[in-house]
């Protein structure tokens, strides 16, 4: 089932929870039949059209749709997962449920506020300048109403530099772009090199992304690489513009 068949009017959804609620709660829809990838793409397109696409909201959305994807994948997979996984699944569903319930409360409150605003808009208030003789605030009538100390306190608050948030829980990221630059830098100095010799000391993630970058360089015709045996050393050679060696990388 694609998004068009799903008949989701994306304009009416205020956020991923809203959309998820609609998808999950539709009685006539079996989750198995919903093309969630299309929901994601349509939602991102929608955000883009709105001009409100930012990485933060897109990421939040993906995290949430991932919960639905996990549910769906369990429907599709044969029943051979162990109990441990199942428990995690139930916990994840409960957590998602708790967040959906909290969101539902404020969505309801939002509706009631909108109604209230509609009712209150019938009442209009006067907005007219005061008669000239009442316009000037009289300095004589003024008396101390604030503590001067509060000004110094406010300056103290403003002098405080924000505590740097704890980012130790955030997984380090490796950029493909940066790995490409690293590879090109090596190839600028040397015509060919051994992968382990240069990158052997990097962590697994960096090595993996570097290999990915090598694939990209191979695709672009910038370098070739060869691995004589499975798990053996990889030799990378800079491609010369005149004789690009067309050689597929060995399996490994």
């Amino acid at each position, binding site marked *: 089932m694609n998004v068009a068949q799903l008949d989701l009017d994306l304009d*009416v*959804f*205020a*956020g*991923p*929870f*809203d959309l*998820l609620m609609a998808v*999950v*709660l539709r009685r006539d829809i079996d*989750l198995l039949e919903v093309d969630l990838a299309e929901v994601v793409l349509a939602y991102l397109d929608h955000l883009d059209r709105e001009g*409100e696409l*930012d990485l*933060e*909201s897109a990421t*939040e*959305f993906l995290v949430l749709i991932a919960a639905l994807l996990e*549910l*769906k994948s*369990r*429907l599709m997979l044969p*029943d051979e997962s162990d109990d441990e996984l*199942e428990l995690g*699944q*139930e916990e994840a*569903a*409960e957590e*998602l*449920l708790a967040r959906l*319930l*909290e*969101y*539902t*409360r*404020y*969505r*309801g*409150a*939002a*509706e*009631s*506020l*909108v109604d*209230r*605003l509609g009712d*209150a*808009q*019938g*009442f*209009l*208030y*006067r*907005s007219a300048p*005061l*008669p000239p003789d*009442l316009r000037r605030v009289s300095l004589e009538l003024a008396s101390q109403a604030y503590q001067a100390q509060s000004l110094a306190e406010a300056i103290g*608050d403003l002098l*405080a530099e*924000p*505590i740097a948030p704890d980012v130790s829980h955030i997984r380090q990221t490796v950029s493909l772009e940066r790995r490409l630059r690293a590879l090109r830098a090596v190839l600028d100095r040397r015509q060919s090199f051994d992968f382990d010799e240069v990158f052997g000391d990097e962590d697994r993630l960096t090595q993996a992304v570097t290999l990915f970058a090598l694939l990209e360089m191979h695709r672009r015709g910038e370098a070739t690489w060869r691995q004589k045996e499975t798990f053996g050393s990889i030799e990378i050679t800079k491609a010369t513009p005149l004789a690009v060696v067309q050689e597929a990388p060995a399996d490994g």
Partner: protein
Amino acid sequence: MADAELAKVVEALLFLAPEAVTAAELAEACEASEDDVREALEALRSRCEGGGLVLREIGGGFALASSPLAEGAARRLLAKPRTPPLTQAQAETLAIVAYLQPVSRPEIARIRGVSSESAVTTLGERGLIEESGRTRFGASTYRTTALFEKLFGLAGLDQLPDPAQFDPTPEQEGELRERLLKAGEQRVE
């Protein structure tokens, strides 16, 4: 000041005042007791019933407003269209601020499941919410403004309905849980 005169003065003051005025402020200005002012306000309220004005209690104070039956004519005369309705994102953000104030942007984003930067900015520009302080990480916290209470016709924040009434019924909650857990249940079958 005689009772009848006090009611007249209170009417005149509410006509002039650009914002809602508390009974205490009225009493001080009229050099009368707060009890007398409250009586005068009651007299004014019944007097208004025969006319085109309404006495409203807004954010703990009192203000005169035009009657809803004059709304159409008033908007024609003043060429003042209704304020644009809130988008759902704005309404949800406003509801979260109204009930949980003071509340920070990350907290709003957590509840809505989506970053709410532009809704917060727009609500601020429309004067419905304002900064109220900072969390220890330097994020601004927000609360609703006096204008919010005025535009939404609230005598005070305690007039907001209990948010629990918007919670799903146990049946709806059960259905939601069931559908979320459907995968597991199917395997049990």
